[in-house]
């Protein structure tokens, strides 16, 4: 009896839930009002985040510029020296102290270093490297080499200066030529380029219009979309609609080949049932 009761109750629940609900319209209105509030709230948060970010950026830039001694100095300080042309690098301000790259030589186990002739005090700015420095700095500096080489307060800057002629004459790591003009060196960073999906969408819409109009050009339009975006977001729809075009054009063998992957998918997959039905009814 409990089996009957369960079956009866299950059927009753199924059938009573089919009855139309007079509250459907009220739910729709409530949904749209909630969605509108949600969108407005999200836009408000986005605007607030943008304003906050802009404010932080502006105040941070102003502070950094103040510390650096003005905006041009700040920009020069931010630009890597290998980007700056040689002429700019000679005009370093005298008051800017040199910062050693590594720990002072006294902290390392080194032979007693003899300060080289080119190790000038911070107030002097010798930017033209000697031939000896060029030879010494052109080889890659591994940790072991660095440990055994004399430490100079301005080693980093002179190294970069020494390497600059070599870098300028060859492409940088990205395979592009280093900028030669001052304006290029202070240019804003290139934004990350993401591939646009606008061409893909345009092709899809074009093919869809032709398909709805049952145009004979629909097939080639679907082919064009699939050539551009074989793994695009709408590739399954495109492939299925292409199969339908083949059916309309009575190219049944090709249609069968195109429909078979859909029909062979797991039950419930996209167009699985429709593809199976079509395959059963296609003329031999």
């Amino acid at each position: 009896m409990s089996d009957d009761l369960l079956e009866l109750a299950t059927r009753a629940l199924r059938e009573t839930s089919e009855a139309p609900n007079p509250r459907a319209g009220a739910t729709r209105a409530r949904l749209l009002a909630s969605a509108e509030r949600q969108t407005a709230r999200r836009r408000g948060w986005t605007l607030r985040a943008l304003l906050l970010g802009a404010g932080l950026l502006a105040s941070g830039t102003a502070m950094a510029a103040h510390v650096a001694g003005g905006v041009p100095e700040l920009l020069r300080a931010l630009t890597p020296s290998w980007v700056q042309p040689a002429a700019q690098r000679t005009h370093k301000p005298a008051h800017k102290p040199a910062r050693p790259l590594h720990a002072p030589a006294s902290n390392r186990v080194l032979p007693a270093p003899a300060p080289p002739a080119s190790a000038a005090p911070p107030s002097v700015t010798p930017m033209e490297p000697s031939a000896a420095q060029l030879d010494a700095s052109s080889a890659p500096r591994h940790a072991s080499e660095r440990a055994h080489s004399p430490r100079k307060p301005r080693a980093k800057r002179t190294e970069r200066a020494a390497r600059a002629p070599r870098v300028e004459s060859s492409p940088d790591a990205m395979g592009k030529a280093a900028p030669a003009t001052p304006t290029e060196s202070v240019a804003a960073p290139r934004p990350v380029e993401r591939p646009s999906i606008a061409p893909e969408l345009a092709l899809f819409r074009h093919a869809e219009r032709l398909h709805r109009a049952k145009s004979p050009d629909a097939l080639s339009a679907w082919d064009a979309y699939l050539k551009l975006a074989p793994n695009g977001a709408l590739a399954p729809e495109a492939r299925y609609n292409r199969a339908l075009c083949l059916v309309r054009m009575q190219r049944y063998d090709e249609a069968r080949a195109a429909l078979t992957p859909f029909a062979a998918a797991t039950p419930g997959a996209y167009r699985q049932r429709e593809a199976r039905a079509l395959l059963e009814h296609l003329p031999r």
Partner: protein
Amino acid sequence: MDGSVERSLQMTVPLESHALGPSAREGLAAGDLDALARLYEQHHEAVRRFARRFVGEETAEDLVHDTFLSLPRALGRWNGTGSLRTFLIGIALNHARHHVRAAARKRAAMQRFAAEPPGPAQSPQDALDQRQLSELLLRAMDTLSFDHRSAFVLCDVEERPAAEVAELLGIPEATVRTRLFHARQKLRTALQRRGAR
């Protein structure tokens, strides 16, 4: 070509029926209320049916509302394969966790404050009409865990194939059958107990 093939051909081109076209998807992501309203018109009956079967009348409308409200954001997780309607049922299932408890509390409260106490046991076919049977089953379902309830409603009430339910719930088919078996056993026991009060 015979009529059945033609009818199949006519089913597919409108993207907004089973799939979701790029224009509708863009509209939803941008907060286009018209796009949301159109999708509601197309799918609210199916979602409401599921909601009434899963949580009952008490909170079905809330579940429908929450399902469609979260659709624009949930679309980011959808890979576009399968039916949009099935995807909506999946969203409703996720939201149902929060509504099942509320609905069960309401039903329990309604029963406590009911005007007349339930009568003595009678033959189900004689005493109980459709609505009462549904209420009885919903109260029995309140004793099930969420997992057992999901398996029972999707398999027995909604009559979906086990493979589809497995995909919806993200579990193996064998697990669906096991949960269904246990759900039916518990429901039989609960119905017997309630029917005898």
